[in-house]
């Protein structure tokens, strides 16, 4: 008989082994899935995980996919540490794209080095303010941020769709729901000639460093962590709870906004109805898979971006539906949650011993 026995204290080792175990279980289940679909599992996994990054072009495309996920996820690492569950990175990303895109379209005839920073600033502020709406609802009305941020995602998406169908539609665009193409000065420079790798990836890597410093070196990060671990301790220590809610949601929204504006001012180059294939949601999985640690998140982002690319390749090469991406993402989160049980419990085989109801207490 298999049973779970409380460890008595959290296992630090298991906290890091669990994501690896989850990834392995995802691969194993994936292989079984390919078999069930009548495909060679080795070829399937190869297409999904290795084929996409076989050459420089593939790796550069990986960075294009990774940049927005990484930006959203490092922002989420901050807010999740405060145990504020911002599920709205997707909406904040879309608002960042819309706000930044609006600035870019207003400055479509402008020239100069200041145009791009203005566009980026517009995107960051839009994402931040969108997240702060949830902060306001939480601090003023005690509204649950999980619900408000999810609902704000739909509002953001519909605002974007309205904008590209109406006020921001390209007048010379034959009535397609798209904006005009942004000017050269409003688009992100390419980092590696001949690829689509843009400076957004550099922003994302810089974001990793910023968040690492914030969480492990700054007093603000310490206060955010304390708030997440114990509200009453934070209150007694004199940390200002409402301020921290505003700040951490704002930081997270700003990063998502930067991700959004980097997409429209980068690889996309204009406002379109479909900006994100769910980067903001994928970032939630990435943040937990990376244990809310910036470096862990970087690694998890690469895996998630790979699944995105592999899903597209599997569609092309194997004729499988692109839903494969969502399926693998879902399995990853599912297994991660299951494996995380092992942080607090160990598996024991053998005869059933008495159950203890109160662990560690004498």
């Amino acid at each position: 008989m298999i049973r779970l026995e409380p460890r008595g204290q959290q296992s630090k080792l298991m906290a890091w082994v669990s994501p690896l175990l989850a990834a392995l279980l995802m691969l194993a289940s994936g292989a079984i899935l390919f078999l069930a679909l009548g495909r060679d599992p080795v070829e399937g996994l190869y297409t999904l995980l290795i084929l996409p990054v076989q050459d420089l072009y593939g790796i550069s495309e990986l960075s294009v996919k990774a940049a927005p996920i990484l930006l959203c996820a490092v922002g989420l690492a901050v807010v999740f540490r405060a145990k504020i569950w911002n599920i709205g990175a997707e909406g904040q990303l879309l608002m960042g794209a819309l706000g930044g895109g609006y600035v870019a379209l207003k400055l479509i005839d402008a020239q100069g080095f200041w145009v791009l920073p203005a566009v980026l600033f517009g995107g960051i502020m839009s994402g931040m303010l969108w997240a702060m709406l949830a902060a306001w609802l939480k601090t003023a009305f005690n509204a649950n941020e999980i619900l408000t941020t999810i609902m704000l995602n739909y509002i953001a998406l519909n605002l974007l769709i309205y904008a590209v169908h109406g006020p921001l539609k390209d007048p010379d665009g034959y009535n397609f729901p798209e904006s005009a193409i942004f000017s050269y000065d409003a688009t992100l420079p390419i980092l590696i000639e001949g690829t689509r790798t843009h400076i957004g990836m550099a922003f994302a890597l810089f974001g990793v460093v910023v968040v690492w410093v914030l969480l492990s070196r700054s007093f603000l990060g310490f206060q955010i962590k304390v708030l997440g671990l114990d509200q009453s301790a934070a209150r007694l220590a004199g940390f200002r709870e409402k301020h921290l809610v505003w700040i951490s949601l704002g930081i997270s929204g700003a990063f998502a906004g930067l991700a959004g504006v980097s997409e429209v001012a980068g690889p996309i180059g204009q406002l379109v109805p479909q900006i994100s294939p769910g980067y903001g949601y994928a970032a939630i999985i990435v943040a937990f898979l990376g244990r809310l640690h910036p470096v862990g998140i970087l690694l998890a982002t690469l895996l998630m971006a790979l699944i995105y690319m592999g899903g597209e390749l599997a569609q092309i090469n194997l004729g499988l539906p692109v839903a494969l991406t969502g399926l693998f993402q879902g399995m990853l989160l599912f297994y991660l949650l299951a494996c995380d049980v092992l942080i607090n419990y160990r598996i024991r085989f053998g005869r059933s011993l008495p159950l203890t109801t109160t662990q560690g207490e004498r």
Partner: protein
Amino acid sequence: MSNQIPRLRLSGITKTYPGCIANDGVSLSLEAGEIHALLGENGAGKSTLMKIIYGVIKPDKGELFWDGVPIEISSPAEARRNGIGMVFQHFSLFETLSITENIALALGDEAGDLDRLASRIKEVSQHYGMALNPDRDVHTLSVGERQRVEIVRCLIQPISLLILDEPTSVLTPQEVDALFVTLRQLANDGCTILFISHKLNEVKALCHNATILREGRVTGNCDPQIESTTRIAGMMVGEDTPLSTEYPKVQGAEIALEISDLNLRSDEPFGTNLKHLNLQVRSGEILGIAGVAGNGQEEFLAALSGETPLNQAKIIQFNGNDISRFRPDQRRRLGVGFVPEERLGRGAIPEMSLTENALLTGYDMPLKTAGMINFSACRSFARKIVSSFKVRCSGIESEAQSLSGGNLQKFIIGREVLQSPKLLIAAHPTWGVDVGAATAIHKSLIELRNQGAAILVISEDIDELFLICDRLGAICHGQLSPFKPTLETDISEIGRWMAGDFATEVA
């Protein structure tokens, strides 16, 4: 002793948890009609042992004999069927239900008709001198009355062993006396009582026999009526631990903290409203507030710390500053330190290291520069706390939750004291702490007092308050009693104040 078969005999009970042995070969024998004390410090294994008897936990090794027959008690329900009842330290009652409804819930199907149950409750409670009106809602009851409900619940069914876990910790001295009358009558009726406590004077007053536990082992058996207090205390804490001493009482200097007519409505449904609180704490004195838990202490402490904001001026004044509207961090900056009731949680973050927990309230030492944490300063502050307060830990990077209660409390007290506060507010500073740590904490508070700090101690432990405080009062139903120098009052007066009778004796 008698040569009849004991009602309950434990033999070689061993229970191991990861990292500690809670019970190590414990043997114990309980006769019918005997009041038997199980004495020991917190963490000695008393709770584990009685949970084993009550079927909450199964032992790894060892046997139980009930009237001489080996039995296995696999659940509390089975324990109850065998006639074993237990009153836990923390009550499990539904506030919004009546006494009858609560007892019916506990009994399940056996409760039967509610009206018949109500009259049975009345009958049982009257028989044992614990008057209860079965129709009252639990939230209207005092803590002492709630405990009676728990006891009556056990007595409704045929019972031959009643286990009480630290039953007196929530009672006023007068309520304790009433409880003892009931327990003696129960014992006369043939019921065995297992009385778990760490208070020697109570055990001496009540019990026929005592078994002493230390670090999971039985360190002695004695007749508490005959054995000397010092010997029993020695068995509890080990011979090498110094026991409490006496501290000279002093008079304070100028007023440091002044509270004028503090009124506060509690947001909690069953919280206590504070009514017209007036109080002065002078620098260089320790002021103590006694009281049974739930009489407004939490609300009062939250108002003092700034966690509950006040929107009136001139209510709380500290060294000439009106701090009524100040946030907790602003109060700290003026030199107010807090030792909260909950060690793990408000006092220290369980998952964080001692270094980080030193930063938690010591940040203005300063332990930060330009928003960045100065980790070397944090570490040296944590090391200073650990060394000057003799905190036993595996290092300053160990998590707060890995420390024993007493050591963590020494750390928290040390963290506040070493910031040299001008006013220290301490709630239950030695609650659940072993004698050695309690003595160390008392000494450090006295030392801080002698350096000229004003100290306010709120505690449920009257002995502690009499030991360290220079002036004493009590809180009841959100109201404060008058305050008197400790030397001019006595336990019975404070006990009456704790019960809400604020008349003063003419000295």
